[in-house]
């Protein structure tokens, strides 16, 4: 019989999500010669990693890792990228999937040189999603300096207004195209890799931790933006309520993670993220006191453990074993008081801090947004990979909470799985 060796209907691979995991799967598969379609819903690639200030534990900016990947994409003819695109439907089976992809209009074409004239010209400002609403940007904007593709975006909010016309008139290169319409394209692929990533858990749902009620309580992802040189404060860590330099910062670990009322699992990265962010504060404010409230510090592996030991040795960083379960604000000073029981001493601690960072965990995108394909999930919304069935796979944080390195390793594995599905082995 020749059925097993039959040539597959399609030799292409679709990767959904252009974050770190999706980039990795796409590039790894493309570099061994397979045609890859990479679909990303944002106007840029890089996902959550692009929003970070530094990686742990090496404390280097993620731009350097992203730059290498973008270079590899540019050099590779096998990768076709669709940004501002969403998968609408997937039908078929391993080796032969029909995929409908909706392309949303960017209103800016390939002629864009990122000169920024359109942004100067428009008047409307919108909250920057990239900065978690901590900054307002013009409605014609470049998502961030290193955005790839390096092209401006015009917000649909100004389409049909005078502002849109101003943008068009300002462009010397004819790059603004206000007539763009959403369209749906169909792709035939042999395998689909879902690298749909994660969302920071909605901290306002943790009602005893005061997020959204008190301005000086922020999330760890907001802290990344505050510390990032291209962030809303140009990298200066300031208290949102009064733009003051914090003299004390409290980190609240397991904010929503390992909690049956929220995310029952450990989000894996938050301990390392807070330790890393403690170094941001230490670097900017050498006198500042940092309090880290934790249940257990989880820094798996030799490198992470070493990082933890180094942070622990810093006498300005104080570790308190006890989960913060109550917060209050002094309305005059805008200082926050966090309350926890120190389980080592058996005393309640009421610690005042200028800035409180909630180490919120990661929730898979699929937990709040059903993916349009026949996939199996666990109770928390992570994709359960069925390797014997093949065809479709979850890569990176769509499959489990992971750091960048683990995500990359797993995503490389999924590139191989996708190739196996495509060649029908």
């Amino acid at each position, binding site marked *: 019989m020749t059925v097993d060796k039959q040539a597959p209907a399609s030799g292409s691979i679709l990767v959904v999500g252009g974050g770190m995991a999706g980039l990795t799967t796409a590039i790894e598969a493309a570099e061994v010669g397979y045609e890859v379609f990479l679909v990303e819903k944002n106007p840029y690639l890089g996902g959550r990693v692009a929003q970070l200030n530094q990686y742990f534990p090496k404390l280097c900016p993620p731009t350097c890792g992203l730059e290498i990947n973008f270079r590899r994409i540019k050099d590779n003819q096998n990768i076709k990228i669709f940004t501002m695109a969403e998968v609408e439907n997937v039908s078929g089976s391993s080796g032969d999937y029909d995929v409908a992809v909706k392309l949303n209009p960017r209103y800016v074409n390939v002629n864009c040189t990122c000169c920024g004239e359109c942004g100067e010209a428009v008047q409307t400002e919108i909250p920057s999603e990239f900065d978690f609403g901590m900054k307002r940007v013009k409605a014609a904007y470049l998502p961030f300096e290193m955005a790839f593709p390096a092209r401006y975006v015009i917000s649909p909010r100004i389409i049909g207004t005078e502002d849109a016309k101003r943008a068009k008139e300002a462009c010397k290169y004819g790059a603004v195209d206000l007539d763009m319409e959403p369209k749906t394209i169909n792709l035939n692929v042999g395998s689909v890799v879902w690298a749909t990533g994660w969302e920071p858990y909605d901290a306002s749902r943790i009602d005893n931790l005061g997020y959204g009620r008190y301005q000086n309580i922020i999330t760890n992802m907001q802290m990344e933006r505050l510390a990032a040189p291209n962030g809303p404060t140009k990298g200066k860590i300031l208290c949102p309520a009064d733009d003051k330099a914090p003299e004390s910062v409290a980190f609240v670990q397991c904010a929503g993670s390992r909690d049956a009322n929220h995310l029952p699992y450990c989000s894996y990265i938050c301990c390392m993220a807070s330790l890393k962010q403690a170094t941001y504060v230490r670097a900017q404010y050498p006198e500042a006191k940092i309090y880290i409230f934790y249940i257990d510090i989880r820094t798996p592996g030799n490198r992470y453990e070493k990082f933890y030991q180094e942070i622990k040795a810093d006498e300005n960083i104080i570790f308190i074993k*006890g989960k913060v379960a109550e917060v209050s604000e002094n309305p005059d000073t805008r200082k926050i008081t966090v*309350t926890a*029981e120190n389980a080592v001493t058996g005393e309640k601690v009421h610690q005042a801090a200028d800035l409180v960072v909630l180490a919120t965990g990661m929730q898979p995108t699929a937990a709040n947004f059903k993916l349009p394909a026949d996939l199996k999930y666990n109770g928390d919304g992570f994709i359960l990979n069925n390797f014997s069935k093949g065809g479709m796979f979850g890569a990176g944080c769509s499959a489990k909470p992971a750091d960048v390195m683990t995500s990359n390793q797993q995503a490389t594995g999924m590139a191989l799985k996708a190739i196996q599905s495509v060649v029908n082995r």
Partner: protein
Amino acid sequence: MTETYMVEPDLEFIKEVGLLGAEDLKKCYQCATCSVACPISPDHKPFPRKEMIAASWGMKDQVVKNADIWLCHNCGDCTTRCPREAKPGDVLAALRTYAIQEYAVPKKLGKMVNDPKKLPMLLAVPVVLFLVVGIFLKIFGIHWLNFSPSGEEIVHAKFFSTWLVDLIFIPTFFFAIGVFVLGLKRFVGDIHEEALKSGKTDKKKIDPKGFIEALVRVIPEILKHKKFSQCGENADRATSHMMVLYGFIGLFIVTNIFFITLYVFGIHGPYSQLNPVKWLANIAGVALVIGAALMIKDRLTATEQTSTYKDWFLVVLALLLGVTGMLTEMTRLGGAAGLSYTIYFIHLVFVWALFAYVPYSKLAHLVYRTVAMAYAEYTERS
């Protein structure tokens, strides 16, 4: 210097506490959310986080002798917040049941009161007791238990003489008091010893005068349910609890007035409905019935709180006590003699069960919690 400390877990204790309602105890991962969520837990050595670990490690003395388990009013704020669904509120309730069994002698009776299989036997005891004493007296021509009471008016004393009631109930009452006295002697010594050991107090000896003064300060707070109403999650439970408590207090007062007027002035019941004492009796009876019914309703609808046999035993007994009491009166007023006498007999069975089994049932919290709260007040633990 590192101190070496060997934990010697009492495995039997862990198992028993689990059966008493602490089945999720081992889920606890010591995050200490509960100690902060609790609206009445103090800053110094707060509860219930430390009780959770001591109980799950089988360190029986550290929890059973710990006054803190009695400061908890089981409002459930900790259970709602608990990220592990370990239900600290229910664990503390289970620990209190265990402690009640520890302090009430004989321990065997305590075990029986908390064992649903023994319930028919426990209720049979007063039935048999009443009949045996009543029939025994008949041999000597004393007809205090008269199965064919005569007369137009229904007078329960003609069926079950007040002499017989007092002959049985007064010793039963003092038996309960005696069990409590024995238990309290050990209890007070133990909670003080534990408080010293864990650094909750620096008072070496308990000064009786200061302790009594603290008790006097605490009682009005208990009557006002001051701590109970600080609860966030189940604040409305304070109302039903107050109704039941005041119902019992009212009925206790009525019983004493009845007792004194009978023995000092020779006036027999039943009293007229116009008598203020009757008013108090009726109001207290209704409060008891409504309060107990509300408690049952709350427990049936509670999703987060576990109700175990010890809880049902008490609330159902309180309800039946109130209902049979009220029905006895209503059937008397309605002229249904046979029915009224029967219900009265059942009512007496429940009253006896309440008296005799108080020191072994959940109702013993009346004594232990009061003493523990007085001790906390005395040692300025707040």
